[in-house]
């Protein structure tokens, strides 16, 4: 635990989320200069239960330790529900963390 900072708060049927993942997001050009493999998050998804509420395929051009802001409707969600964030990177590593949605 502890790779991602997840803040998610619901109000009037809409939840606003801020997720920051710790990741080097090293582009190919920079990696070559350093003599290491490029590595960056290639997929980040957010789920509440079975429902996908956020999905992005970033590239090497998304900033280091990327911060994503997004929103979703909370219809059907109830107190105690968690936002589960999961990312995969070029090396195949996957990290999944979750946080209870405030305000539900």
């Amino acid at each position: 635990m502890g790779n991602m900072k997840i803040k998610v708060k619901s109000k009037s049927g809409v939840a606003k989320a801020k997720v920051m993942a710790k990741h080097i997001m090293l582009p190919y050009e920079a990696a070559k200069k350093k003599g290491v493999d490029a590595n960056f998050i290639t997929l980040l998804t957010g789920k509440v239960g079975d429902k996908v509420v956020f999905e992005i395929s970033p590239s090497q051009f998304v900033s280091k330790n990327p911060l994503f802001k997004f929103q979703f409707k909370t219809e059907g969600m109830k107190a105690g529900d968690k936002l589960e964030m999961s990312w995969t990177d070029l090396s195949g590593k996957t990290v999944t963390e979750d946080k209870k949605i405030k305000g539900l």
Partner: protein
Amino acid sequence: MNRRKFLGLGLAAAAVLPTAINAVDFRKTKPDTWTAHKVEDGIKGLFGDIKAEASDKIKLKTPKVASNGGAIPINIKTDIDAKTVAVFQDVNPESTVAVFSVPEGGIVDYGMKIKMKGSGKITIIVEDRAGKFHSKVNELEVALGGCEG
């Protein structure tokens, strides 16, 4: 890994077929978009030969001058019933920055920080659920170029 079938995007080589693919497959089924240098090729690699209409309905917020090219904050907002939102720019070695898959009934109000090597244009393409494409382009200056953060 998310196996939900939400999207209807065709394969890069063939015509547009509404088979559901989730975002991670973009890397496998649309390799051309990630290696494309020019924005038009990035768009073609992802969506095929499409015509996007410039749209007022896409609100793209970018700084006029970005002080740090390694972390440029952008915000994309639209009421269009979007299925896919793709971000491109024209100064980095490859043009495609990110692709969002919008879940059914999702809200498009995205914020994130991107890298740009220098001043240039950011292009957003929104594919709506009716299969139409909308675009928005913002030009911005970058004070300190940053492809390597």
